């Protein structure tokens, strides 16, 4: 007993060092468990509001480029509204069910207040939370393409797991062949990801577009994700290794839309019932 006490007395600093390192290491390896807890992350209200204020300040330096992209988007949307209005008017006369089916997707505009896109622990924080109808598991997209999925949410802020996160696996398909696969990111560049599960019997061309598949209830169909940049396959492999250049430029991301699906519970009900 006395020996033990003497040992602790003599090596106290080293033991404290080991203890503190062990606490930090446990925090690190249990990261996934705490991802839901907004207290220990940057969507914590105190930290997020500081970041939000800083981002307001920062915004002045990006006004011109943001304006440019917003006006471009405006123009595109107005054109779409016109086209859709024509279609709706025509369809309304024919079929009243049509309208109901297109109420499936709704969009909540949000601003990025904090972002990390250059490590393996990438994340985004948005200035919309439970109060605005945001929930865990909803999709997030920008005017350029898919951004990610809401991973944690508190009353005022939402934290997004982007598609450039190693734990993310997004269902998507090739535009030319409609072949479905999964988008996976291994890093380190925020501009590239890989498309997996495309068999070698399918012909894949460089420059082919990768779109959302519509097989999950996160995103509507045919939202752009990226463009095939490189096609390769190893001798004896069944699946291609497809390098995808992402359409979303995470470095310049300022405004996004959160995709909500009011019919999601209906869709899930059908799935569990069958």
């Amino acid at each position, binding site marked *: 007993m006395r020996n033990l006490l003497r040992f602790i007395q003599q090596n*106290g*600093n080293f033991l*404290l*060092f080991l203890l*503190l*390192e062990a*606490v*930090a*290491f*446990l*925090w*690190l390896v249990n*990261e996934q468990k*705490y991802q839901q807890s907004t207290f*220990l*992350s*940057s*969507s*914590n209200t105190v*930290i997020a509001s*500081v*970041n939000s204020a*800083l981002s307001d300040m*920062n915004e002045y330096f990006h006004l011109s480029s943001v304006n440019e992209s917003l006006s471009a988007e405006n123009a595109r949307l107005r054109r779409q509204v016109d086209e859709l209005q024509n279609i709706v008017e025509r369809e309304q006369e024919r079929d009243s069910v049509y309208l109901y089916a297109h109420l499936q997707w709704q969009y909540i505009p949000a601003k990025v207040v904090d972002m*990390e*896109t*250059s*490590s*393996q*622990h990438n*994340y985004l924080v948005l200035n919309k939370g439970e109060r605005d109808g945001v929930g865990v598991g909803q999709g997030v997209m920008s005017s350029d393409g898919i951004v990610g999925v809401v991973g944690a949410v508190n009353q005022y802020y939402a*934290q997004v797991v982007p598609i450039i996160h190693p734990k993310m696996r997004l269902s998507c398909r090739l535009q030319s062949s409609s072949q479905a696969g999964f988008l996976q990111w291994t*890093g*380190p*560049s*925020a501009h590239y990801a890989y498309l997996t599960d495309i068999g070698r019997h399918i012909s894949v061309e460089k420059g082919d577009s990768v779109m959302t598949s519509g097989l999950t209830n996160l995103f509507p169909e045919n939202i752009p994700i990226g463009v095939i940049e490189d096609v390769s396959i190893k001798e004896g492999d069944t699946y291609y290794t497809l390098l995808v250049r992402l359409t979303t430029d995470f*470095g310049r991301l300022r405004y996004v839309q959160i995709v909500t699906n009011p019919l999601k519970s209906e869709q899930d009900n059908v799935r569990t019932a069958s």
Partner: protein
Amino acid sequence: MKWFQLVIRTIIVLFLQIAIFNHLPLFNLCHPYIYILLLICLPIMPRYAEMLVGFALGVIMDCVCSSAGIHTMACVAISYIRPIILSRKVQEIERVTGEVVAGSIGNATFALSSIWLTLIHHLIVFSLDTWSWAHWYWVVLQVIISGSITLACVYVYGFLLRRS
């Protein structure tokens, strides 16, 4: 009074880190963690106290960066190692009062110990963050680029701002 100054300095450095240095847009390569100058220049205290300060600073940075324990591990490590490095160079380290800067422990010692501590801290942070050996070149590149900027800030503080 001295403690009051220390707290104010800590707040200013953390603000600079979070507001400016966390958002430097340089090809996604540049992540200088200048906040470690708080640990490098920390006044000499009992070793357990230095480690607890490092732990607290690491937890704050981890909450801000959503990095779950990575900064905490790196900060505790350099807080543990600093007295070992310093006591090899400076005789009677306990006599050093106030901050550990160029003026109090000598130019060469300060320059050398800063290099070691910055290198160790950045190496731990970037390799834990990458969490695989497949991208070791990326880790080395980030340590070199971010580390030199951090070191420049530590030198500006330790050599110039604290000259008196």
